[in-house]
């Protein structure tokens, strides 16, 4: 229970001009879907597949919407509650993923409305899909949830396969190439499935262009990440969580590429002139994993009051670190390229995991690498009541950072849809105390003669 209603900023005032433009892409996605609905174009509800499925579906003329993203949206505009209640009434345990329960509740409403988007649907709603694209990567919810939608719509579900071997196993003879072969074979199967479903052939040239464009966009996005290593930090998580949308959901869109070039320019400017995102940067923190969408302003507050800059965050939202040239040599088949891009996402930090003996490579090792690259003073760990995959490894990451790099973590509970869980006042006082903690560990790193 809290007595004082401390004034906590809800919405974040972003520090980049370009970040303020990024909202355009979110709207564009929803509008395109609704337009597609009117034009009778096929629509896919897709999980985030780290570009494994999206490009192919789009190349087949499908318009995609992302129910996970819609969950975050409904929560942010305080419209998720009703959906959650319906999902509960349907018998889905309240411990399941908040995004899933939001989507299930919405799907029920859609079905009750004869699959016409309800008038009052948040953000214009999601139109009934032609296909559900689930993913086995990162978490079980992301294929079980789409399977569960069968109660509300007779729509086929395709489950994308993305191998998730352990770090040790990744380096076993031939395993890597076997994994890639598996992905490519599945992509062929996926295309075959789509061609049958949509009664048209895949235009491989178009797909190849989209993949090329995607590689370019992801490249700039990564270069922006590189710029962020600068001290003081030129942009912060509050900015990233807006600018990520285009590369994450629309990397094949030339507009996204153009946008990132502008982001790059703006950030570069600030780095060259040593302009920090926050005026008095004293501490540099990382954030893991999914943010409290509804109160991002909180990070403005701790930036202002304690000089905390959120310098890097949310491994899963980031563009891949570029694939080594030799691995791409002579590869032209777009499916081979897609396989390497998506597989890269889940294996790119395996070398770090080996270096620090800190498996798993996904959701974990990145933070050790980043702590060094971004000279981080601490990790803001955000365990979520209803998103286990983004929570499983947090304590482990906390331990690894502490043991290997003398970087402490502050743990603040929250949720992706139940906004009440994140208690901004409690969080604020924890961070206030954590400032002392970061000072202490700085001394420890000095004693240990570490680089930062």
């Amino acid at each position: 229970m809290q007595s004082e209603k401390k004034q906590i900023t809800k919405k974040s005032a972003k520090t980049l001009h370009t970040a303020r433009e990024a909202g355009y892409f979110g709207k564009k996605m929803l509008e395109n879907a609704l337009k597609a609905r009117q034009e009778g174009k096929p629509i896919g509800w897709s999980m985030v597949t780290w570009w494994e499925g999206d490009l192919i579906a789009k190349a087949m003329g499908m318009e995609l919407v992302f129910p996970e993203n819609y969950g975050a949206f409904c929560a942010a505009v305080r419209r998720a509650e009703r959906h959650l209640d319906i999902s509960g009434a349907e018998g889905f345990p309240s411990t399941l993923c908040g995004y899933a329960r939001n989507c299930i509740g919405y799907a029920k409403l859609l079905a009750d409305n004869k699959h016409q988007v309800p008038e009052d649907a948040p953000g214009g709603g999601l139109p009934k899909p032609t296909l559900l694209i689930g993913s086995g990567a990162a978490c079980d919810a992301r294929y079980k949830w789409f399977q569960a939608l069968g109660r509300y719509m007779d729509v086929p579900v395709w489950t994308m396969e993305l191998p998730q071997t352990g770090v040790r196993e990744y380096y076993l003879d031939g395993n890597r190439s076997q994994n890639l072969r598996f992905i490519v074979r599945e992509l062929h199967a996926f295309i075959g499935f789509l061609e049958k479903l949509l009664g048209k052939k895949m235009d491989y040239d178009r797909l190849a262009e989209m993949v090329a464009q995607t590689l370019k966009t992801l490249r700039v996005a990564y270069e922006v990440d590189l710029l962020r290593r600068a001290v003081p930090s030129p942009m912060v998580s509050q900015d990233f969580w807006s600018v990520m949308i285009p590369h994450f959901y629309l990397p094949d869109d030339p507009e996204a590429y153009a946008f990132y070039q502008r982001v790059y320019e703006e950030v570069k400017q600030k780095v060259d002139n040593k302009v920090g995102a926050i005026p008095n940067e004293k501490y540099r923190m990382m954030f893991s994993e999914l943010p409290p969408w509804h109160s991002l302003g909180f990070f403005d507050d701790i930036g202002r009051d304690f000089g905390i800059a959120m310098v890097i965050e949310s491994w899963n939202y980031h563009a891949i670190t570029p694939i080594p040239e030799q691995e791409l040599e002579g590869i032209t088949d777009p499916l081979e390229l897609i396989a390497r891009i998506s597989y890269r996402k889940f294996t790119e930090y395996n070398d770090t995991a080996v270096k620090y003996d800190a498996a798993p490579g996904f959701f974990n090792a990145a933070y050790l690498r980043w702590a060094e690259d971004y000279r981080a003073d601490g990790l803001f760990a955000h365990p979520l009541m209803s998103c286990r995959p983004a929570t499983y490894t947090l304590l482990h990451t906390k331990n690894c950072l502490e043991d290997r790099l003398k970087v402490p973590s502050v743990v603040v509970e929250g949720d992706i849809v139940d906004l009440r869980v994140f208690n901004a006042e409690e969080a604020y006082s924890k961070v206030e105390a954590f400032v002392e903690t970061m000072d202490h560990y700085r001394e420890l790193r000095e004693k240990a003669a570490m680089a930062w």
Partner: protein
Amino acid sequence: MTTASEPKGLARASKVYRNRAYRAREWKAEGKKVMGYFCCYPPLELMTALDMLPFRILGDMDESISVGDGYLPTVMCIFYRSCFDLGMKGRYDFLDGFIGAHACDGAERTALIWTHYIKSPCNFHLDIPHTSHVAARDFFKEQLIHLKETLESFAGSTIGEARLRDAIALHNRQRGLVRDLYELRKPDPPLLTGSEALQVLIATMCLPVQEGSTLLEEVIAEVKTRRETPEKKIGRLLIWGSLIDNTALTGLMEESGLHIVVEDTAIGVRPFRHDIEQTQDPLDGLARHYLEEVKCPRTFVETGASYGEDLENRFHYLREFATHWKVNGVYANIIRNCDIHGYEVPAVRDYLEGLGLPVLIIEQDYSTAALEPLRTRFQAFAEAIG
């Protein structure tokens, strides 16, 4: 080896159940290796073929989770939190190897973290695809080969095809015996209680395959001939869902007037329902069995043209269970935070109620301390059936 003083049949089952590690420790003392594994996906045949003892890692509903909480968040699957907690407390210190599996998120993440804090001389993490597409099966076979090679290099010997076939035969025989055991649960009242069956099944998961089979034979003979059979009860339950590894829970149901006659869980019929086909390349048979015949909602079943068809594809085998074991009620057991079964609840309920079976759904906290409040629920369910 089992001495003369060693009890037989149900008595031995209950001894192993109560002290699961004792035989494994003896085995280790004999200079042989014990391999701990998660869930029912790592092929036991590969371990048996190298004369290793496959040992199923389970939790403990009697032990409150403490040390483990410093490493795994409380929002995750309580069963795997418990497994890890026991590991950190040294309860699995006799393991020579650890075989994790991507059975579900909980199993996978726990396994990946396990190897970081609990060191074994031999480790392997078995990735399991989510579909049973052709490419998926081939991929899974490749993973099994990596597991095989890891085990071989640890054992310092190789698994010849003949040895592997023998191991498959041994385990198939045990699968057959377990199915025979389930036959004894078809009469009304069943010839053995759910709690007895659970003790036997867990015992087989802690014993070398031949000893496990001997135990099963003893139990079957004993049960067929014993005088006092379980009393008649109102309910004949099918248990579906998260595994149950403690008789405190099954006992509570039985005290409440419910017989447990068949369990579709990872300790029940799932690992035993089908034999492994002896294929040209034995690994093909292994791959197909473990990926496709071990039925758990963790593996995606291709959607049907309609919801009804979809349900039939996913759950038709439950109808067989219901008819053959004369089931008149279903207990859907969900260990809190078990997503795999959690997402399945409304669908499985739709299907079973479609068959006219009442379904009791309980999300429980995998703790004997928290069982008592469930008594009223089970009693009311029994009253609803009767």
